[in-house]
């Protein structure tokens, strides 16, 4: 199941990191800080998105490559199919989750 859920776990990690950092920033009052001219929340959303996307795409492509080799037993190939299909879903979920935070201009609200 981990093999299948790898991409979505990357999304979940992204979600968790952004949620925790945003909660801390808003609760502790540093959400209005700007990093390189970008507000904290959009900065976090973009900075965490890049590694999450990289891991997800890498996992999905690895699974796709394995699934195409056609040498593994059918059960393993199915796990690889789940790996790349859920990886593709995770890429969409990452973009969808990141979008609202990236559109915020300032602060928490």
């Amino acid at each position, binding site marked *: 199941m981990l093999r299948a859920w790898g991409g979505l*776990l990357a999304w*979940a990690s992204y979600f968790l990191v952004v949620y925790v950092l945003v*909660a801390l920033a808003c609760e502790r009052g540093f*959400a209005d800080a700007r990093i390189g001219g970008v507000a904290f929340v959009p900065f976090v959303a973009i900075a965490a998105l890049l590694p999450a996307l990289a891991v997800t795409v890498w996992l999905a492509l690895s699974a796709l490559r394995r699934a195409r080799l056609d040498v593994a037993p059918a059960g393993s190939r199915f796990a690889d*199919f789940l790996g790349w299909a*859920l990886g593709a879903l995770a890429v969409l979920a990452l973009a969808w989750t990141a979008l609202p935070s990236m559109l915020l201009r300032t602060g928490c609200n």
Partner: protein
Amino acid sequence: MTPDAEPLEEAPPLEVRQAQEARLHAAWNPPTGWRYFSEVNNSAVGMWYTALTVAFLVFGGVLALLMRIQLAVPGNTFLSPETYNQVFTVHGSVMMFLVAIPLFEAISILFLPPFLGTRELPFPRLSAFGLWAFLIGGVFLSGSILFGAAPNGGWFMYPPLTSRYEPGIGADMWLLGFSFIEVAAIAASVELIIGVLKSRPVGMRINLIPLYGWYVLVAAVMVLFAFPSLIAGSLLLELERAFDWPFFDPTRGGDPLLWQHLFWLFGHPDVYIIFLPGAGLVSMIVATMAQRPLVGYRWVVVALLGTGLVSFALWVHHMFAVGLPHASASLFSAASMAVSVPAGIQVFAWLATLRSGRVRLATPTWFILGFFGIFVLGGLTGVMLAVVPFDWQAHDTYFVVAHLHYVVIGGMVFPVFAAIYYWAPMISGKPLSERMGKWACGLMFVGMNAAFFPMHVSGLLGMPRRVWTYPAGLGWELWNLLSTVGAFVLAAGVALVLLDLLLHLRPAGKVDVNPWNAGTLEWLPLDTYASRSIPRVSSRDPLWDNPRLRDEVDAGQHYLPGLATGERETLVTSPIEAEPQYLLRLPGPSWLPLLAGLGTATFFFALTVKWVWIAVGGAALALFGIVRWLWASDPRPLAGSFEVGDGIRLPAYMTGSRSHAWWAVVVLLLVEGSVFASLVFSYLFLWTVAPGAWPPAPLPLPEPAAAGVAVVGYVAALVAISWAGRALAASHSRTLTLALVAGAALLALAFSSDWRAALDAGIDARRHAYGAAVHALLAWQGLHVALVAIVTVYVLARLRAGLLGREHRVTFDTLRLLWLYTAAQGLVTIAVVHSPRIVA
């Protein structure tokens, strides 16, 4: 021609078949008379479990009708305000905890073995324990309303209402009672996960699992990660109520929102835990009723795995109105909309299957069509509520009541009623009444929409949920009257189904029917021992692909046609490719699960009313029952291997990661870890919301020197268990004993050092939420150290009794996993408790 078309063996001569059948019957037939209730077989336990949940459904339904009578007209006094509070609380709690969740477990325990073509799930006594715990707990909780002692704070029990303003035992009953029922749910999940992963027939690779198996697997895994947060939350709220530990008291550093986070971390995945198995039933029924394989099997699996995971990122959408920053709310709003995508994939797959097949319009099909209409509407209003500004308007109104009933009744009740009509012939050998079924479906569909659609309107008109009554002139009268009439029509439909069941469902001995011409394994001829032999499978619809399979299996031409070991047994296969691994000997009828369930229930409910000594007695009874039951559950390995068919010989004992026991312990440790993670989350949450420094001055931190001692102790305990493992492998009993005793002492030393440091520093659990959070973490760790000590004594007793050895080592492997986990958890506890010093 698929390999299914080839029987594994020639049909044995008649006298051999009769002898095999006689031995199977001797092993698997249930006891007679009053001893029947000591049976632990899935078919008996699953049947009782299902009947019990239906009984609770009726009870919860009657409570709903009482509410609807009260709200039918403005200014009504049919129920008193206090009674009304108890009625809506018990209605919601019963429907969630005693119906929606256990119904999926009950149906799965009943149906999963036949779906998978296996004789039995791997832990039958665990299922029986869960059943008895559920029965006793459920009756006690439901019965409390008859004595006016029921909880009255709503099914999600928000503090401070439940922590400060509910002095009676109702809230304790809820917190302890439902925690206990959650334990039963987790027990069932262990059984179902290992069942799907390790009890499939040979050849049923993961790409061939019947979709219900996939749905159950995902829902059961979700239970492991969702329920622990509620267990942790209930623990904290009960600690506040009983011992004044102020987790939720803002005057002492607590925060009521912590409860909402913990509750909805459980509560939102729970919606999918309820819906997914219902969707699994739909997937099975749609394919048969359309007489074609489900369109997009692979994508449906993708969708349900995606739904399962994304559903853990939605909990805050129940909290949009509590004043969270918009930046946080937007994350959850996005995830709430995103989850509708995989849900939509499933709906389109079902529609495409129906569109491209030849649909038989029997009663199950009508219920499925009703499910589509109702559930999709519930899903759409869910997307509306995911939009933050709309949620602010509709929050806590009848609009939300309408939404959640469309989701739960559409997503769970209609599929289950379809399942009742679809699978009844598997139990009694003949279908229920088509005429009564269609009438019932019509009444339920009309009644459901008449009852709940008007609630959208009354909600948008501003009617808040949970009001005891309302004045005339607000425009709510018509909608409420319609809802009441609809509720009674819905109840009439349910009553008609019950009547049909009473009149026509008679469990038969051997059942040999396939009335819907289904392609899946549950329609093999079934007897008390399940199918006569365990089929080899190489397609998703084996009965369609090989029309002779039913006869071959029934003639004993596949695996395990008789008893290989002379006891109840089943095949264990590998999780991905379903290759045969070993023969699992299964326990037979026993009163021990009932005894353990009774003891556990006594413990929890005696605590509720603060009868401490009776609680201790209950705990002792539970411990006795569980230890006696476990003592026999790791029997001496049988020498050699056993022929299971097709020339394959398998051992009848397995250790390590191939063993079902190893998997079960890992699954349970995931639950433990999830509870612990919830406690860590609680600590960090309280830290985050605390204004200023943490801990707030002048509250102290424990001394770091004690942490150093504890770290050394835990690491040394890890070395000791490794040493014990080597001693066992070398059959050195004395060294093994020494290593285990020394290691357990080191664990205790490490924990006591950490705990002592907190006490010496003057960290008080009652003074501030900081102290309460620290002591909660330490108490959880202490519980595990005590558990390791008990299991160590147990393992040493088995060693002394000659029931532990180099080959016979499952009990030791279990202890080792628990030990590793406890030491690791201890180290993380130290890191968390001392983290303010590091951060500072």
